[in-house]
């Protein structure tokens, strides 16, 4: 089975070469037959990669330690779920998952792209095939997950205990679906450059893929953030770790792309910019892969530090980023610029959004790469952490967030900012009220915190205002309004939901950062501690045995007003004998949207235990907001206009925007 997997992977590599070359050549000489090769080959390549992945997963599930990769990252006593998720909890397996998702998206284009013009489809599949070929070669040449061990060891070396968590089942697949999903936008862009033509229908094909990738990336980042929050036991939700930044940069660029694609689709403007953004977004995904997989950075995610791998990925990076940008430089002048618009208009607002988001992406990029550059040119080693990002990224985000509610309410082409401001009066009043209530009634609230809460309410109420205004609140009877509301395009709800989610996330961040409290103390069994109105009693440490670890469980009783126990929170120190590693399992109690978070430290000689406690107000909104954003993307995807094969689509498109291609 394992050799079958390896063989399937080699076949998939060969097929991806065919996919990269034949349709491309077919499109050049206008051969229908050769162009048609792309589809079936892409689907077969996906099937073979799946087979290969399944072979590895089976080896993991059955604990086949004759496979070096399984031996290195699994143990027979692990629960089955962690055996399976361990498949991608290592360098080789995660690269295989990466390629699996890449070929999956290629197959999706093949399956749903029947309404694409044949040359465009052929070129898209060819570019997708080329990416697949290089990464498959990378796996086969430097990171073969199927290498055997002889003689086969009896027992494995266990999966890194930090990864033995349900988070590993969800976070990497979601993140990769997002990361790699942008490859489609990249392929569409490069295909458009190869063809030298781009029109509004191009944006209509690219936008749903952007939405899909963005939706998964949002979920992946939110999930990763929550995982780090509860697993690492530091109580933080974002560390500005280089690897986090690696996923955050494509998200920022992807968000910009999402918005500029709207302008391109609706108004046929910003074409060249949109195309460039699509290239940049996937380039940032590739850069992220390089940063994470090459081991140039110190991080939780750096599984392996093999220099040949780093060099190989750097070559891939240069090939695709350099190649696509060079192609852009040569061909972009052949694409026509789009329609004009007034600075105060929906387009103008979306351009503003793009300006802020790309600048923010650039600051994150600089902060992430600066230490590498400094180390390369001088021997100094520096680290750029949260203080840098708070100082640069923060000031960039605030004006953008203030502007968000205006955008969807502005008219296309030429908007009236005063009319929009009038419509937003209610939202502004609500935000002002939130600021006043926070400043006056919450103890210890700084001006900054109050304004933060106000900003969050501004976003939330602004999103609701958008729906209310578009359903005609105040100008028509409630019955008509409801009917109008139901008749609004889904994408309007999608926008409002995504902006609402952004507001919720902002509220969560402000709540946690400004109103959270923290205590570190050493406790004896029976002692109680007060934290932000909650009383906790330490009950003591109790040893327990897990399948592949032993642990000391610290039990804490959350006491009610009358002193009775309302619930029990457990935080434990786990020790995994195989890797001789200790991990801390934090104890979390969710109360409303807020959480009590506690984490166990070392035991002192006098029998007391160091305990760190946090009260994190509204913290769950940070990730809840991410879920709402995902729901917004899903809602937009269901829009009739974007649905694949929606009958009315082509009719609408020809009416609105003339094709802008050059001969």
């Amino acid at each position, binding site marked *: 089975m394992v050799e079958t997997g390896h063989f399937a992977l080699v076949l998939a590599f060969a097929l991806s070469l065919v996919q990269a070359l034949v349709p491309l050549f077919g499109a050049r000489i206008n051969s229908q037959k050769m162009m048609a090769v792309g589809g079936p080959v892409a689907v077969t390549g996906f099937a073979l990669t799946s087979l290969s992945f399944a072979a590895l997963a089976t080896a993991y599930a059955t604990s086949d330690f004759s496979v070096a990769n399984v031996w*290195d990252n699994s143990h027979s006593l692990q629960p089955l779920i962690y055996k399976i998720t361990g498949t991608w909890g290592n360098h080789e397996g995660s690269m295989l998952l990466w390629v699996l998702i890449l070929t999956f998206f290629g197959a999706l284009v093949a399956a749903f792209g029947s309404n694409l013009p044949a040359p465009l489809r052929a070129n898209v599949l060819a570019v997708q095939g080329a990416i697949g070929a290089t990464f498959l070669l990378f796996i086969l040449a430097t990171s073969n997950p199927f290498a055997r061990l002889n003689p086969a060891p009896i027992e494995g070396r266990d999966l*890194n205990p*930090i990864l033995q968590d349900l988070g590993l089942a969800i976070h990497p697949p979601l993140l990769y679906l997002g990361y790699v999903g942008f490859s489609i936008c990249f392929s569409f862009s490069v295909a458009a450059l190869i063809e030298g033509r781009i029109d509004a229908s191009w944006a209509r094909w690219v936008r749903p893929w952007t939405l899909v990738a963005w939706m998964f990336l949002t979920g992946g980042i939110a999930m990763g953030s929550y995982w780090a929050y509860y697993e690492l*036991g530091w109580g933080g939700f974002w560390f500005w770790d280089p690897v986090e930044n690696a996923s955050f940069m494509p998200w920022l660029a992807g968000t910009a792309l999402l918005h500029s694609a709207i302008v391109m689709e609706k108004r046929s403007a910003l074409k060249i910019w949109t195309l460039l953004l699509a290239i940049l977004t996937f380039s940032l995904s590739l850069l992220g892969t390089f940063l994470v997989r090459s081991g140039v*950075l*110190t991080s*939780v995610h750096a599984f392996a*530090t093999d220099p040949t791998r780093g060099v190989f990925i750097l070559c891939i990076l240069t090939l695709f980023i350099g190649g696509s940008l060079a192609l852009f430089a040569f061909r972009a002048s052949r694409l026509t610029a789009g329609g*004009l618009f007034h*600075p105060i208009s929906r387009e103008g607002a979306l351009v503003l959004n793009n*300006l802020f988001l790309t*600048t923010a992406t*650039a*600051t994150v990029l*600089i*902060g992430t790469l*600066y*230490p590498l550059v400094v180390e390369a040119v001088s021997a*100094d*080693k*520096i*680290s*750029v*952490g949260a*203080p*840098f990002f708070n*100082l*640069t990224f923060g*000031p*960039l985000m605030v004006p953008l967030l203030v502007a968000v509610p205006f955008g969807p309410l502005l008219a296309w082409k030429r908007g009236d900012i005063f009319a929009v401001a009038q419509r937003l009066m209610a939202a502004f009043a609500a935000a002002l009220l939130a600021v006043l209530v926070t400043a006056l009634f919450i103890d210890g609230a700084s001006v900054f915190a109050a304004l933060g809460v106000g900003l969050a309410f501004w976003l939330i109420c602004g999103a609701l205002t958008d729906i209310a205004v578009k359903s005609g609140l105040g100008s028509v009877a409630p019955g008509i309004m409801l009917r109008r509301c139901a008749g609004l395009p889904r994408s309007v709800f999608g926008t409002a939901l995504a902006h609402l989610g952004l507001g919720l996330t902002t509220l969560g961040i402000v709540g946690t950062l400004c109103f959270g409290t923290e205590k*570190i*103390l*050493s406790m004896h069994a029976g002692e109680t501690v007060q934290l932000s109105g909650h009383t906790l009693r330490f009950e003591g440490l109790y040893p327990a045995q897990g399948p592949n670890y032993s642990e000391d469980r610290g039990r804490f009783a959350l006491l009610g007003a009358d002193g009775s126990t309302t619930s029990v929170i457990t935080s434990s*120190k786990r020790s995994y004998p195989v*890797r*001789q*590693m*200790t*991990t*801390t399992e934090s104890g979390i109690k969710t109360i409303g949207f807020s959480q009590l978070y506690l*984490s166990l*430290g*070392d035991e*002192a*000689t006098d029998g007391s235990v*160091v305990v*760190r406690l946090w009260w994190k107000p509204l913290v769950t909104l940070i990730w809840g907001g991410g879920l709402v954003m995902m729901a917004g993307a899903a809602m937009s995807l269901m829009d009739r206009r974007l649905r694949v094969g929606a009958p009315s689509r082509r009719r609408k498109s020809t009416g609105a925007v003339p094709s802008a291609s050059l001969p």
Partner: protein
Amino acid sequence: MTRKQKRLSVIAGGLAFLGAATGLTFYALGQKASYFYMPADLTIASLQPGQRIRLGGLVEKGTIERGQGTTVAFSVTDNQKQVKVTYTGILPDLFREEQGVITEGTFRPDGVFVADSVLAKHDENYMPKEVADGLKSKGVWQESKSD
């Protein structure tokens, strides 16, 4: 305004914005980036009082003292020089004697390094990269391959 003026003002606005962002970025890099030192580097390096740095090395054997409550003191060494470090909080799970650590914080006037964060290696094969490189350059580190 004519169309040309309008376009120019938009471009000027965009450039001013980008300029401000660039300025902010470089200011922040100058202020907020923290440099990494090994104990032996510190004698030659001139630190401004209160400057944040990252101090890395090995936790010296037999120097971990748990004070009252949650304060811990230990020495970080590169086998040439030692620096005494105090830290209040929970040490990472993998904090042990003779293991690589990176601490971040500032020096007190009496020469004790007050760390506000302590990072230890993530698993048994892993040594913070800066520490490994630093130890290698000082000839302390031996390449050990465990697989």
